[in-house]
């Protein structure tokens, strides 16, 4: 018999038992919507994670010093982040630091792979002062590569000149938020102004050469007012090193040239620098890239999402059992109808198809409602968690297909039972 007729028939029999059909669908609706909601939230978390990591620079390699494992312990820790045991933390001292010499040799050794090197020397946090106005800042000295590594573009002014770097000038690049506090947002006025900087116990005078656009960091929580917001202030690296009386650094970031394989270059970099630390008793070099971290985090997230979705799938299973149950009831109720159809000449296959289509229609309608509900729920959840809502098209299609499959799976037994009824018994059924 025609599929169209079967669908019409199924819809009319659902209409005849609206409440029952709805309750049966509810199981499917709950199952599908929870799977979809979880998948949507999972996809949202994944994309927000990718965005965050991307903003941290997925193509950057962070190189740092870490304490050597003591030989006698003999076991190596696999994961990247190793922490020294309590009480035996050593901080690298001046003679352990990476020197500018090493960095230069590294750049010369990999001229095509290294785009830039970012070194940052932090100073004590403090305030910029103009008359009675202030702006909280966290000052640090940065190398040229810093701006590239952190994707920082200037709104006004310029980067440090070679002259300023060589002469260890007190030139500063500040945020637009600081400009708002000190110069009522007038960037033209800010550029070239000389202002006081209090950093720890130091009183300095800096000249503003550039303004960058402040971006809320993915990790900045809390609700400091605009006025008390602490933003970064950048000085030339040599200037900051003078203030801290140092000439090296304990960590730096390498910006890889596009198209490089992060994983292999991470290990090359680690090997390159470890040569310098062969004879260092306390420290060795450790390098990692965001992209490799991102990969493992994403796959971990995927596993968790799939796991939870599978649990939600149990709700779908229960829904499917409900469908089977109601189909069995429906077939018993319609025994005479089945007998009549058989007497009129319906072959078993037509009867089977009729009830299979009915079960599938229940599941498909439930599935469609579930998809809509689940997407809405997932988007609300993503909104609440402040993440980009990403309804996953593939999971919607899979869910619809899956709800059809549930219909076929749980509808087949009742449909087959109907098909195999003896027409005489069915006609006589009271």
């Amino acid at each position, binding site marked *: *018999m*025609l599929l169209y*007729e079967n669908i019409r*028939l199924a819809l*009319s*029999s659902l*209409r*005849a038992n609206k409440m029952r059909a709805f309750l049966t669908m509810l199981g499917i609706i709950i199952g599908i919507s929870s799977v979809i909601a979880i998948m949507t939230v999972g996809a949202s978390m994944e994309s927000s994670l990718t965005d965050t990591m991307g903003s941290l620079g997925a193509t950057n390699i962070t190189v740092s010093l870490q304490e050597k494992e003591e030989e006698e312990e003999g076991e190596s820790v696999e994961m990247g982040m190793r922490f020294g045991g309590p009480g035996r933390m050593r901080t690298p001292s001046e003679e352990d630091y990476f020197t500018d010499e090493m960095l230069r040799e590294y750049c010369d050794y990999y001229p095509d792979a290294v785009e830039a090197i970012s070194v940052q020397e932090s100073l004590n946090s403090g305030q910029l002062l103009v008359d009675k106005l202030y702006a909280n800042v966290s000052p640090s000295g940065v190398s040229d590569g810093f701006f590239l590594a952190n994707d920082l573009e200037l709104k006004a002014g310029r980067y440090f000149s070679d002259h300023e770097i060589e002469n260890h000038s007190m030139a500063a690049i500040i945020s637009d938020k600081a400009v708002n506090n000190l110069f009522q947002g007038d960037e033209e006025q800010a550029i070239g102004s000389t202002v006081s900087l209090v950093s720890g116990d130091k009183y300095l005078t800096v000249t503003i050469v550039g303004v960058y656009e402040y971006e809320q960091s993915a990790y900045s929580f809390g609700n400091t007012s605009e006025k008390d917001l602490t933003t970064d202030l950048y000085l030339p690296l040599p200037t900051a090193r003078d203030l801290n009386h140092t000439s090296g650094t304990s960590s730096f970031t390498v910006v890889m040239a596009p198209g490089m394989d992060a994983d292999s270059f991470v290990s090359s970099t680690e090997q390159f620098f470890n040569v310098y630390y062969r004879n260092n008793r306390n420290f060795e070099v450790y390098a990692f890239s965001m992209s490799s971290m991102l990969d493992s985090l994403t796959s971990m997230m995927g596993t968790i999402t799939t796991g939870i979705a599978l649990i939600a799938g149990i709700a779908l299973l229960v829904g499917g059992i409900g469908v089977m149950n109601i189909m069995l009831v429906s077939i018993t109720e319609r025994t*005479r*109808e089945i*007998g*009549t*159809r*058989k*007497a*009129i*000449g*319906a*072959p*078993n*296959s*037509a009867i089977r198809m009729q009830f299979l289509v009915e079960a599938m229609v229940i599941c498909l309608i439930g599935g469609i409602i579930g998809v809509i509900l689940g997407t809405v729920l997932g988007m609300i959840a993503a909104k609440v968690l402040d993440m980009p809502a990403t309804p996953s098209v593939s999971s919607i299609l899979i869910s619809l297909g899956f709800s059809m499959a549930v219909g076929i799976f749980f509808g087949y037994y009742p449909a087959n039972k109907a098909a195999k009824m003896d*027409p*005489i018994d069915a*006609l006589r059924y009271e």
Partner: protein
Amino acid sequence: MEDRRRMIEMTGIVKKYFIDTPNEISALRGVDLTVYEGEFLAVVGASGSGKSTLMNIIGTLDRPTEGQYTLDGVDTNAAKDTELSNIRNQKVGFVFQTYNLIARTSALMNVELPMLYAGMSRKERNERAEELLRMVGMEDRMKHRPEELSGGQKQRVAIARAMGNDPSIILADEPTGALDSSTGRMVMDLFHRLHQEKGKTIVLITHSPELAEETERIITLKDGAVISEREGIGHAVV
């Protein structure tokens, strides 16, 4: 009469239930029956006489334990289940005591049903169903559902449905059993019209001697065997 086409040809039909168990029952004990094209035949008998079993076998809903049954030239003994479905669809029109219309489905759709299973196109079955409903005087109730029809109206729809694929025989099992006498009369008149005007072969199963008398030939069953066969008085449609 003998040179007419044989619609039903039964020889030595035996039907046993619970075979090889202590409560084995023989519902039919060797029935021979021949029904010719265009004949109006009544099968009468008390309950338990084997009427229903005979009807089920004639309608190919059931198979005999022994014996040969040929329906409109088709040997039913050799037919598979799907072939029997097809035979029922093409060659038999059932009319039941309890109408057995499909609930929640319009009269028109009910009449279309056998044509649907026969694979007729939508347009064709629609036209034919409308024509059949006009024939039984139900043209202004086509869109009504069985729940909205009276007993007599339901039975008229059922007769239209039985005519769906222009079957070789119409098999009516107590068609007036659930109707009052005037409605029953109307339904019987409809059968007479089908018989006389359309030349249909009709087998009427009934326990009412008066109704049986209206037919051309009366077969009486008792304890699973034919005990008498005689001509009926007949009936003229007014």
